[in-house]
């Protein structure tokens, strides 16, 4: 097993995250627990057929979304694959808007049109979940290209970077190779974060990609600075991501991150998971990112911890979060369904035109004088 191998750390080395205030780390804990709880309810709602289509659960990978988001600014755009609820919440999307989206309700972040795989939140610079594996990678390159152009040519923005997330299954697609090549040749500040959970749907990484122990060679071969990150420890994610983000922002160059993580649930809700053992899943749960961060915050400073969280605080936080997510579900339940008269024919075009379907009269046939 090559996943999430922890590198030995020199205890004397100061960690970047050690300099952050307690509030920041407590917020990380809150955000990760919010995602964990949200996904637990999402599974329930899916099983009750309240959520349509396909649903990909993020549980286990929380340290990636929260840690990476912590390393960038709010106006640095983020592009996602389809396992995207966690990033949406980490970016600040309201859980009710996220849940309502999956319920197909008008109050969803995209008025219930996108669903689980298509979380968008423009005010939070979240440019979407994408349902086609790897198709988002050249798009992230283009967004970052715009960031550089708007800084360098138009002088309308400061230096920004674009985080583009993809799974380890997506690295096998041609689009990703085109994206990396473009980014390096043009000098584009995009950071590709491979959330390497060890499986391309139901196929283990050593069966789906060559040289899987050294994915960073892929990025390096395109002249892209590439790092490997233990993605189960959020403090480590921040410690390694922050300098990379700063460097890519400063130099306006791309980055490549093999972020080793693990998903507790199947690829999607309909995955029988015949490709792995329960023991394997349990072994990763022993290194759970949320439990570890909570333990660190509760441990006293003498023991290398922060001593800023009591058992009671932690229980209260979990209880509050449980309520927030239950409220999100209740909100999604009672929210209005889309009106077919309005919603079937709107929003496909920014500039609708006569004879352009869908128009207000979205069936051409109704114009037939014989009908």
């Amino acid at each position: 097993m090559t996943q999430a191998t922890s590198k030995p750390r020199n205890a004397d080395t100061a960690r970047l995250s050690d300099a952050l205030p307690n509030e920041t780390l407590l917020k990380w804990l809150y955000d990760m627990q919010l995602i964990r709880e949200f996904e637990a309810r999402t599974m329930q709602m899916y099983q009750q057929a309240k959520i349509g289509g396909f649903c990909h659960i993020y549980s286990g990978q929380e340290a990636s979304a929260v840690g990476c988001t912590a390393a960038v600014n709010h106006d640095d755009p983020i592009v996602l694959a389809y396992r995207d609820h966690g990033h949406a919440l980490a970016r600040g999307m309201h859980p009710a808007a996220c849940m309502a989206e999956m319920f197909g309700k008008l109050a969803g972040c995209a008025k219930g049109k996108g669903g689980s795989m298509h979380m968008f939140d423009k005010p939070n610079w979240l440019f979407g979940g994408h349902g086609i594996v790897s198709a988002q990678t050249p798009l992230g390159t283009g967004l970052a290209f715009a960031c550089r152009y708007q800084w360098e040519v138009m002088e309308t923005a400061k230096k920004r970077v674009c985080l583009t997330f993809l799974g380890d299954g997506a690295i096998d697609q041609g689009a990703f190779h085109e994206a990396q090549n473009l980014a390096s040749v043009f000098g584009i500040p995009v950071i590709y974060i491979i959330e390497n959970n060890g499986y391309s749907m139901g196929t283990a990484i050593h069966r789906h990609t060559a040289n899987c122990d050294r994915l960073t060679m892929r990025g390096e071969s395109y002249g892209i600075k590439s790092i490997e990150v233990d993605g189960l420890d959020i403090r480590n994610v921040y410690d390694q991501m922050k300098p990379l983000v700063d460097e890519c922002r400063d130099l306006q160059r791309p980055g490549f991150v093999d972020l080793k993580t693990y998903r507790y649930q199947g690829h999607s809700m309909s995955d029988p998971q015949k490709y792995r053992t329960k023991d394997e899943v349990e072994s990763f749960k022993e290194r759970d990112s949320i439990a570890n961060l909570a333990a660190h915050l509760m441990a006293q400073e003498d023991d290398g911890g922060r001593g800023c969280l009591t058992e009671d605080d932690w229980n209260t936080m979990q209880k509050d979060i449980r309520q927030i997510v239950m409220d999100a579900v209740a909100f999604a339940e009672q929210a209005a369904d889309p009106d077919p008269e309005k919603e079937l024919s709107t929003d496909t075009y920014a500039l609708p035109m006569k004879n352009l379907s869908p128009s207000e009269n979205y069936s051409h046939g109704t114009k037939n004088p014989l009908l």
Partner: protein
Amino acid sequence: MAKLTLVQAINQALDHEMTRDERVVILGEDVGPNGGVFRVTDGLAAKHGNHRVQNTPLDESGIIGAAIGLAVAGMRPIAELQFEGFMGPAYDQIVNHAARYRNRTRGTITVPLTIRVPVGGGIHAPELHSDSPEAIYTHSPGLKVVMPCTPYDAKGLLLSAIRDPDPVIFFEPKRVYRSFREEVPEEDYTIPIGEAKVISDGDDLTVVTWGASVFECLEAIDNLPDDVSIELIDLRTIDPIDIDCIAQSVQKTGRCVVVHEAPRTAGLGAEISALVQEHCFLHLEAPVQRVTGFDTVMPYYKLELEYLPDAERIGKGIAECLAY
């Protein structure tokens, strides 16, 4: 007023819009110093800089994907694909992403992207360099599709396309690129997307076509007896189809022939036939006739002219429709 070819008119429109709007950037294979495979972007890199006229690797998926990213970030990208066959590698980005972004995000994110693509046969090239895939993209909600065939229309429609907030596929009939010149004003003007043009008035039969076929139709009409009066419509925009213009004409003539280069089955001729029977059923004197390419792969140049609808086949189609 200068007389320009189609290539020169498009070049002038690009130059004009790059000067007017700093958000406009061009991406494509060899579009920089070389000016692209058909030299349409000639001189633009020298004038506006290589950073605005970006030579890309040979990666259509990457080009269109990056152009979508630029568009959603508020830029006005223009992507050039060298040939219509090369839309294949970019199909995912065009149809699954560019076309659907606005709907998927319920109007919060739009894709103001123009994709320029040389299209059609008649230059002795093989398949993938001579195809006519306009129906495929017309069948994909979220895109607008235009195909002007004259220099004047090309400049006006390209400026409309670049300024349009939606993704527009701008097909350029490569057979017409340098085949003739006409007067093109230097100043800013636009031709609205979605408006067809009646090229010649007539009372006996309506011919609907677009792209390079317009000129074959003109020749076919020229060969007809003087007492036959044909109304010729150049669609100019494929999607949205100007059915009002077609219906007005067919309600007058009662007969309609559709001419296109693409294969017949499920081509745009089928859609136009359906629209005509919806709008003109009680006026029709004859079934709508289709004169099209055959249901096969575009042949290499020895058989190219057999495949493309020429004046003779179009004339025959008109005669059959008139005689029904």
